[in-house]
Each structure stands twice: as C-alpha cells, then as structure tokens.
C-alpha cells in the first residue's frame, strides 16, 4: 500500500504550545520512492492523455510532496523557505531556474540530462535538467504538439531547421524534434541545422524543390531570420505550399539582435509567403518538460498539465491580471525533477493565454554609480 504523499503535516497543537507545528517526515526509502514515483508517473501520464480524469491541484500537491521527499536539493530548498505547507498548486515553492545551473534537481537517477545552450550564462554555466522519466517528457511533448499544431496521427512532410538528437544529444529541443519527426513526419529530409549551424544553401535548395504538398517547417527562429537575410541579399523568396505551417522556437536567441514578433511574422510573410495564422510559435525551456504554443500574434497557451503564474520578483507575489511580471511554471510533466520553476521570462496574461515579452533585462545602474561587477579587475 502506498504511503500518503503529503510530506509535511500541519497539526493543531495543544493549548499552551506553539499554535502550529510542521512535522517533517523522514525521506522515503528507495523502494518506497520508486513505488510512489511509479504511481505518480502513471497518474501524470493519464492526466496528459485525458486531463478530465484527474484534478490538477490534487495531482500537483502530490507531486510536490513526492519531490520534497525524493529530491535532496529540493527538500533543502523547501526547508530553507520555512513556509507553510502549500494548500494549492499556486503555493508550491518554485525553485529559481538558476538552480538548474548549480544543483542536480532530480528525484532519482537521470535517464537523460538535457543542457541549455549556454547563450545566457556561458558554456560552463549551462542549466542541466536531469530527467529520470523520459517517457513523461515524450508524452507531454507529443500531446502538446497535437493540441496546438497537428491532429493525432496526422503526418506531413517536415522541413526541419532545428537541432535533432543526432547532432545535439544534450538538447531537449533536439530530443523533442526527433520524437515529432518520428510521429508526424511523412518524409525524412535531414535537418538543415547541424553541429556547425544552419546550412543556408541547402535550406534554399530544399525550399526550391518543394511540391504542392503542405509542409511543416519546424525551425529555430534565428535560422529563419538568417535565411531571410541570406535570401534578401540575393533577392530570393519562396511561397510555401498551401496549408503549410511554420513552427518556430527560440526567439531571437542566437541572432544578432532582438527582433519583435510582429517583425518576425512580417519577415516570414515576405520570404516564405506565410500569413500569421500559418505560424505557430513554440515556447519551451530546458528545465521544462512541457511547452506552450501561440498561433500568429496570439498569446501562448499552455496545455492543461502546465500552469503559469505571473509574479512580481520583488515580492514573490502574483501580479494583478494583465500586469507584467515574471513567469512561474507548474509543470506536472516535470514529475521526476522539479514541478515549480520561477523564471526571469517576462509576460502577462492575455486572452486566457500568456503574452511573452522576452527575458528580464539586467538592470543598468544610473549616473555615476558603478555596478561592482563592472569594476572587477581580476
């Protein structure tokens, strides 16, 4: 029989003693952890397959309890906060995404370790997401794609300008692209992005030879912007076959400059002949097993197993609806690592989705004050 998954039980104390106390149960044995993990993994997988079969709140609290007991680094974090036990998913302590650069946040041995690209903090400080249960990540990625892009079982010709597992074995995006290709690709055109970057000549060659069958062009945004630059210099452009979709991801990361989303869409229209409604943007991060998608210039919509809170980092509190803040994710598909993650990605709630506004910039000191980090001589 599985033990209750609540890790900390609030009790009423007898009169004269402390008003409340928190009993911390000792970490579970490996055997019990495995049992709990298997049970929870099954519940999460069932929720991803059919969200109406379970309650997000109950499941999130159960996953939190399990992670508290099974993940030493997360337990130390929660204990440090010394907060009351969460009563709803909104109160689950969220680790800063930065923690993935400093600690192993996993509830067991990792089947895969995905690492971020290092564009934010440098190659030596990449975030590492240790994932014990790749099957949950796979289920989440495929189910999310089906909800936002292609119907279940639908196959189309994929043109891919994004990492794949073969060339980028540590990339979570590469893993996802490989699964998507296996599930939805009606062809097998090799990715136009290799270890050395995007091959623009081959990209153009591939687009030149498309027939009228609709395609899914799955690409990192920077690759498409580079293609647009390349094509612009040669006065080239294409019109994708009718019914085609562009799925892009990554924003301007890796490109020379930030490009506003409406300019990206206008670039796609000019170079690839697509309307905004044919463009789907995927938002994901190494530390998350689930993704959000946005069509055209609409907001990003998370799947039912991923919820978002917009927070004021200064206070840690949720901002008013529609106000700008930083995104906190509660992702059931992160059952084997950490459910709740506080990011520095900026956004606001719009039309029941999330409008992404980029990453919080570093503050610039004013006037003649010197930020000490700019002063160091060593």
């Amino acid at each position, binding site marked *: 029989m599985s033990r209750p998954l609540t890790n900390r039980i609030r009790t009423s104390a007898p009169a004269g003693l402390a008003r409340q106390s928190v009993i911390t149960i000792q970490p579970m044995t490996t055997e019990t952890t495995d049992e709990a993990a298997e049970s929870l993994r099954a519940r999460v997988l069932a929720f991803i397959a059919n969200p109406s079969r379970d309650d997000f709140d109950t499941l999130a609290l159960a996953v939190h309890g399990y992670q508290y007991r099974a993940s030493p*680094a997360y337990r*130390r*974090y929660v204990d*440090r906060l010394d907060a009351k036990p969460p009563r709803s998913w909104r109160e689950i302590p969220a680790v*800063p995404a*930065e*923690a993935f650069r*400093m*600690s192993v946040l996993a509830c067991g041995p990792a089947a895969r370790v995905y690492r971020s690209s290092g564009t934010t903090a440098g190659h030596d400080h990449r975030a590492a997401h240790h994932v014990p249960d790749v099957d949950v990540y796979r289920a989440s990625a495929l189910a999310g794609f089906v909800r936002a892009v292609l119907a279940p079982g639908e196959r189309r010709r994929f043109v891919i300008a994004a990492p794949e597992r073969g060339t980028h074995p540590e990339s979570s995006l590469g893993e996802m692209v490989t699964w998507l290709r296996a599930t939805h690709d009606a062809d097998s055109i090799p990715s136009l992005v290799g270890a050395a970057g995007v091959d623009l000549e081959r990209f153009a060659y591939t687009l030149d030879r498309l027939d009228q069958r609709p395609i899914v062009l799955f690409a990192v945004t920077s690759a498409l912007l580079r293609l647009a630059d390349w094509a612009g210099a040669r006065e080239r452009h294409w019109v994708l076959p009718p019914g085609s979709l562009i799925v892009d991801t990554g924003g301007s990361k890796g490109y020379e400059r930030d490009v506003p989303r409406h300019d990206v869409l206008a670039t796609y229209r000019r170079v690839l002949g697509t309307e905004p409604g044919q463009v789907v943007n995927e938002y994901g991060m190494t530390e998350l097993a689930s993704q959000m998608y946005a069509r055209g210039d609409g907001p990003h919509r998370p799947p039912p197993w991923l919820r978002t809170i917009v927070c*004021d*980092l*200064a*206070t*840690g509190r949720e901002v008013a609806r529609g106000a*700008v*803040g*930083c995104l906190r994710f509660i992702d059931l598909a992160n059952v084997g690592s950490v459910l709740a993650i*506080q990011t*520095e990605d*900026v956004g606001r709630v719009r039309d029941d989705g999330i409008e992404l506004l980029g990453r*919080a*910039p*570093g*503050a*610039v*000191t*004013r*006037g*003649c*004050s*010197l*930020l*000490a*980090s*700019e*002063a*160091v*001589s*060593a």
Partner: protein
Amino acid sequence: MIRLDERLTPTRAPLTPPRLRAVARALRAGGPGLLRLSPEERIAALDRVAASWLAPDSAWRRRALAELPISTGHPPATIDIALANLWSALRAPHLGAVYERERVEDTTHALPGLALHVLAGNVPGVGVFGVFAALLAGVPSLVKPAAREPFLPGIIVESINTVAPELRRAVAVTPWRGGTADLDSVAVDEADLVLAYGRDETLDRLALRQPRRFVRYGERLSVALVGRSARTPATAAALARQVALFDQQGCLSPQVACVEETSPADTEHFAALVAAELAELEQRLPRATPTLAESATTWRFLERQRWRAQEGASVAVHGGHAGAGSVVCVREETWPMSPTFRHLILLPVPSLRDAAAPLRRVAGAVEAVGYAGPAAELGEAAEVAAAVGAHRLCPLERLQAPPFAWRQSGHARLGSIVGHDGGDAPPTFA
C-alpha cells in the same frame, strides 16, 4: 530679438541649436561681470543661496521636496537628507577654505570663458558642487540636467537668480536629451571646459566631441571598513543608512564592507544587525519603486547566493525578504558583486590591513572609504584606501555627506575648473 534674461530662462519651447548657442554666448558675455565681483562677494552670494535652502521655511526646498520624489522615485525623507547634506557643504566657510587652499588667483592658466556641466540623475544634487565651484572661480556655467531629473538644477538656478541676483547672468539650465547630436555639438563647441557626470558610455560619447578641456566624473563605488571594536548596533545602523540612501546608486554608496573579525558568529551577528536595520529603513527611507529589470537583477543575485548557501558554499544571506535590502557575508576568495539597490557584500577580514587584498578586485574604481573604528587604527584604514585608489577617507556615517573640498573622482574642486588639477593625491580624510 531675444532679451538676455529671456535667453537665460528655461522655457518649454523646444531647444534648438541656435537657441542653445545664444544662451551659451549670453552666459559667456556675463563672465566679466562675474569676475568683477571679488572672491569674497562671490562666496557671500553663494552662501546666501545655500542659506536660503537651509532656512526652515525655504520655498526652494519645499518645491524640491514636492517635485524630486516624482522624478527620482526617492521618498521626501531621502530628498531632505540629500538637500541638507548638499547645502550644508556649500556654506561660506567651506567655500572660502577651498578657495584659499587651491589658490585660484595664483593660476597661470586663462580662466575658462564658459563651463558646460552635464549632470547625472542618480543622486539629487550630483554636479551642484561643480557648478558652485565654477561660479566661485568666476566661470559662467551652462547646466544640462539629467533627463530623468531635470527639476533640481532648475530650482537651484531660480534660487540663485532670486537670492543672488549678482550671479544671475552667470548660470543657466538648458534641458535636452543627451545624445542629440546637434545640441551636444553646440554645447561642447561653445564651452571651454566640460564637467560631465554619469555612465562611462555617456562620458565616452561626449569625449568623442573633443571638448577643449574635459573633466570626467565617471562610474565609481565606495567601500566601508569596520574595526573590531566598532561592530556595534550604532555602526550597523550607520552602515545600513549609507547603503539605503539613494538605493546604492551613488558613487559614495558602499557596496562592500570589510569587517574585522573576532569570530564568525560575531561577524554574522553584525551582518544580521545591518540587515535588520536595512529592513527597518524600508519604513523610514523606503526605496524607489524598482523597475522590472532592477527587481530581476536583485532577485537573481539573492536567489543565487541563497542557493549557494543552501548547498554548502561559504556564504550567508541576511535579510532580503519581500524586496528589503540584504547583507551577504562571504568567506570565499572570489566574492560576488553587489547588484546595488541595497544589497551589501560583507567580507570578514582578520585585520583592517588585510582588507586591501580582497578589495584589490575593485581597486581603481573606489571613490571613498567610510571608516568605523578607533582613531588609532585610522592609519591602517588610510593604507587600505590608498591601496584601492580611493579619493576620500571619512567617518562611515559621513560617507554620503561629502565636503565641498572632496577631490571628487580625484579632481581638485577649483583646480579642475581653472586648469591645475594637481594630479594624483592621497585620499584625504574629510
């Protein structure tokens, strides 16, 4: 035709290059009139201005207290402290002492016909010392206020015009957006001397215009030294106050404190005292509302240090809850840098003299050293200040109340105006 007084009056009309040139030339034309005043008369006139701001019923201060909280985000209490520090330093004895010390009349250099002052908006009053120094030396001044804080310079010039009418043709405020090429160009071309405050990129941009003489007051920080016997609640309160004032946005704001250690527990206790004072100051001197970028920067810093502490690094974070300031006590060779906004790095050291080693990382960027400890150990503090290239050593509680005599960024107050800066000098205790 534009009347002279009209030219020197800030207006809401868009500033054009011809109009700016006319203002500059009108000021230059007023130079001989300024020099006809004796030094004593100039000191007396400037002293009347300072006195008018310090008067209990000062209309200037009342206006500044109403307007500056809006432009700076700092509460009136912080503005009041800034104004009190500023004007107390500009009274006749201080002006006279600097005039005497720097012997302006002995200069062999020709006095500049016009000084351009490019101000920064990080701390209310930054650059006013320079304007007063120029007027004291007999040099008319064109003042470009910071875009984010244009009010105080305007009120000050209004007070000069009212209280010291003999100086009214010698100073004018003309706001324009820095980086506007044609206006920057006219202003720099018309001036014989440019005194500029602010970020290095701002100063570099001005330097490209090749001013005839350029005095830079660039980006700097300050540090605190706390002796073993001074680790008291009073010192903790003083240190917290210096950290809290202007949210560490000034070059005199301490970002690092080296504290002489008896035992780690005692040091952590002192750090906790400072953090508690910072939390308390959130009530009396609340911080300016942070931007999202500022919130993210401080959050990132704090969460990183807390996580490192949790995972066993030799770091302890005191305070920092719900947006309050923090003290991060570090026992590692490579210490993290403060993100400013009331977050202090505390480095325990075996003795004050040992502070020079960890502070080597910021050597050359230190403006001032605030010292709390016995007078007998002042020499050790002076050695540290000299080792890091500081220009000022002062009692900790006076860190952000600099005297007029302060060699700001290493420049002699009047010498930098008249052209004999005096070169490198050891830090002065002031």
